[in-house]
């Protein structure tokens, strides 16, 4: 379903203002916060823009139709929010600058000549830094990954971890059937389980089970977002989505001024927030410092 929203800005593109097509994978949270941050920043910078909104409501079939519309309107910039819309737009549109937000990894943008953006994945260093702050006594960290997806990232983490005082036990799995065994083995070896975005390991099928595993074995699990924390993970790092929108706005200025997309390298979120589940901590008898609790963006 494509909904056109007009008149967000009174500036006419023909009278010197910009026409920006916003293509959202989901109109809800946190995508709306990213858009809010983006528009606020441009407004603050005095940029007059006319926005065409194309929100997808969980219907991937609407992608093609929306892209055709976008192309007909010939906007000055296409702002894609989410992996679904970004991937499709990068594939179809080559002559209009594309700015992506809320994508997991920069891998999508590296092959594009007209696109750039802000991705969600935090660097291993950031991960370990915050692990040390929240769980200062932890030494052995376990992670399960599918090499096809995360080989490079794990290799980097294995290099960084010792430097940060951690012993990272990375267990690779190639099929879902290997997951139970691997989990059982990790239960005896690690103090914390680090969750990384991996479709084979962390998906709706395994999520509940891994959380249950964490509970049963009293091994705290670092989730992928606040929703994971709410479901039972001990904590999760998260981007500040408004700031992520502002960060995208900053990139948009360059693109609107004629800078080519591939000349602006994709960036991770510059502002990190975290959420905590104190009930989990209590259940696992883990002591969290007051400071950490105080600075947490969300506490469950």
């Amino acid at each position: 379903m494509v909904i056109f929203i007009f008149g967000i800005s009174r500036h006419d593109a023909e009278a010197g203002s910009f026409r920006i097509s916003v293509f959202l994978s989901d109109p809800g949270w946190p995508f709306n916060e990213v858009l809010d941050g983006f528009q606020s920043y441009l407004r603050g910078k005095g940029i007059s823009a006319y926005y065409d909104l194309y929100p997808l409501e969980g219907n991937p079939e609407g992608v093609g139709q929306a892209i055709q519309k976008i192309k007909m309107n010939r906007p000055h910039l296409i702002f894609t929010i989410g992996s679904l819309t970004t991937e499709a737009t990068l594939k179809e549109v080559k002559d209009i600058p594309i700015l992506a937000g809320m994508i997991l990894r920069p891998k999508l943008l590296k092959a594009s000549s007209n696109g750039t953006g802000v991705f969600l994945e935090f660097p291993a260093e950031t991960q370990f830094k915050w692990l040390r702050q929240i769980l200062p006594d932890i030494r052995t960290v376990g992670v399960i990954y599918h090499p096809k997806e995360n080989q490079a990232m794990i290799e980097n983490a294995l290099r960084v971890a010792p430097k940060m005082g951690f012993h990272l036990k990375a267990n690779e799995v190639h099929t879902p059937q290997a997951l139970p065994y691997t989990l059982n083995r990790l239960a005896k070896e690690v103090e914390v389980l680090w969750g990384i975005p991996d479709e084979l390991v962390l998906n709706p099928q395994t999520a509940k089970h891994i959380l249950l595993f964490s509970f049963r074995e009293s091994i705290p699990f670092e989730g992928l977002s606040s929703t994971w924390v709410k479901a039972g993970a001990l904590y999760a790092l998260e981007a500040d989505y408004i700031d992520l929108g502002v960060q995208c706005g900053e990139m948009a200025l360059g693109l609107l001024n004629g800078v080519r997309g591939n000349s602006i390298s994709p960036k991770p979120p510059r502002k990190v927030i975290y959420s905590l589940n104190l009930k989990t901590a209590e259940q696992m008898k883990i002591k969290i410092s007051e400071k950490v609790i105080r600075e947490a963006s969300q506490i469950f």
Partner: protein
Amino acid sequence: MDLKRNKRIKLSTKFNLLTISLILATSLGITFFIIWGEIKKTNQELLNHGKIIANMMSQNSEYGIYTEDWVSLSRLVKGLEFDPNMAYLFIFNKKKIPLVYKFFKSTMIFPPELLHEKLNSPNQILYQKFINRQDRKFYIDFQVPVIGDHSDRTLEIFNLDKERANPKVIGYVQVGLTQEHLQKTISQFLLSNLFFTSFIVFVGVGLTLYITKRITLPIKKLRWMAQEIAEGKFDHSIEIETHDEISDLSLAFNHMLDRLKAYQDKVEERNAELTIANQKMLQEINERKRMEEALQKAHDELEERVRKRTEELARINEALKEEIVERKRAEEERISLQEQLQQAQKMEAIGQLAGGVAHDFNNLLTIITGYSDLMLSQLNEEDSLYGDVIEIKRAAERASTLTRQLLAFSRKQVLQPKILDLNQLVANLDKMLRRLIGEDIELVTKMDEKLGRIKADPGQIEQVVLNLVVNARDAMPKGGRLTIETANAELDEYYTRTHLGVKPGHYVMISISDTGAGMTPEVKERIFEPFFTTKEKGRGTGLGLSTVYGIVKQSEGYIWVYSEPGQGTTFKIYFPVIEDMVESLESTPDSKKTVRGTETILLVEDEEMVRGLVRMILERNGYHVLEASGGENALRIAQEYRSQPIHLMVTDVVMPGMSGRELVDCMKILRPEIKILYISGYTNDAIIRHGVLGEGTAFLQKPFTANILTHKIREVLDGHS
């Protein structure tokens, strides 16, 4: 029917029955709805239970199916062991290979096939009831898909609260529930419900009976009071205990009682007056009744008299009618008889006339014939007078024939009756009759073999038959059939009453029928009259049937003719039956036999010409003749010739003075040996009247020829007669 009508149901019983029926109906209705609802609810609960288990298993088995971790799946299955409704559980991967399964009952169960084609979207659940072929019990099978999310949109899948973006079937769960536990639960519920309902009904009925008794007690009192009133007892009153409609009714009842009491007094007073009036009326009614009875009796008697009189009148009327009919019949008979009498008288008169003429003719013809014979005996055939004399003799003979016929008709010829068998007579005539009628006419004879005998002159009867046959032949010129029939017949009183002169008795009947032209009534009336003929001139003399009539009558018989124009004619002749042996018929005299003699003959004849003629004939034939003109003369001659024998006396029967019979009687005294030959021109009646003919008496009818005379004399002298 009467029993049914008279069957009385008490008000309390009706009320009890109504209330109990309502309690029963309500209890049963409520129980039914409760049970029905409970069964429906329990069934629905079982279904929901199954759906919940299936969905729960679908949700919880995602990881187990995804990782094909049978340990975690077994753990899930184990959790269901305590559910008494569970029958079986299967968890399949997306290739329909069962990863885990368990049967919770000892019975072998054969679940339905997995309908994986229909299980392709989230929140879908299929369920069906089936009968397990092993234990023949009902089970419910639930099938649900296990949905996973294979989205690679990492950020989105992190949000656990959100709907799955790209759902896909990763496996299936099949759950079977048994209804055994459900049925037990329902049975227990049924039992407890029935017990409770029975208790409610019992209490309800008890309460109803109690309340009914309380309510109907005052009504019963009222009824008792009403009965008392009905029996005329007005001394009671009802005690009022309640304050409801029944108490109002009781008050009204008491008031009514007072009023009734007053009325009763008035009624009794009035009754006394009425009783007196009634008695008077009763007396009056009785009196009237008696009067009515008397009137009725008189009426009945009168009716009876009228009836009897009517019957009598009817009988008289009937008798009168019969008498009228009888008189009419008698009148008809009388007319018929009168007609017959007239006919008979006519015939008698004609007969008398004919008889008288014939007598005189006979004497004359005897002379003519006799002298003709004498003349012929003296003439040669060559003489010129010979032929003339022959003609005279022939004419005399024809005249003699006519005279005989007239005599026959007038029944005045002399008959020589014999006992006859008519069958034999007809048989003897058969050849001659056939020659007579010719070949064109068929002769049929029907003879009664047991035919009775009659007494008649055979020659005359032959004449009768011949005459009738000739008549029949003439009536059938173109041929036909002639039937001669004989039979015994009995002529009864009625027949004799309607046929003049007929005597009742046994008869022999001979009938001669032809198929000829028949006769008109006018012709039939006159057929027996002499000289009446319908034949052409020269063919008939008109004396044939007259002769027949005369012969039959003279033979004491009866002749009747039946004829219609075109229908032929039948003559029926009845002769009285005679119980004697048949005599043989004599043959006619042989003319060539010797008739001469030398004996002495006394000839007694008052007619001189006849006497002379006879004397001449006898003397020419050798006899010695003594001649006398009367009886006294004859006796004198007999005395004069005492010394000479007189062999034969030939005497006339009717003579002036002494008759032939008286002469013979006297002569027999003088000459007992003398033989007698009577000759007469008179009729048979006259001869009988003169007492001549008896058994063995010789007689010769005038006119006769010389030959006949000489033959007869010879016959008498020779002792054959």
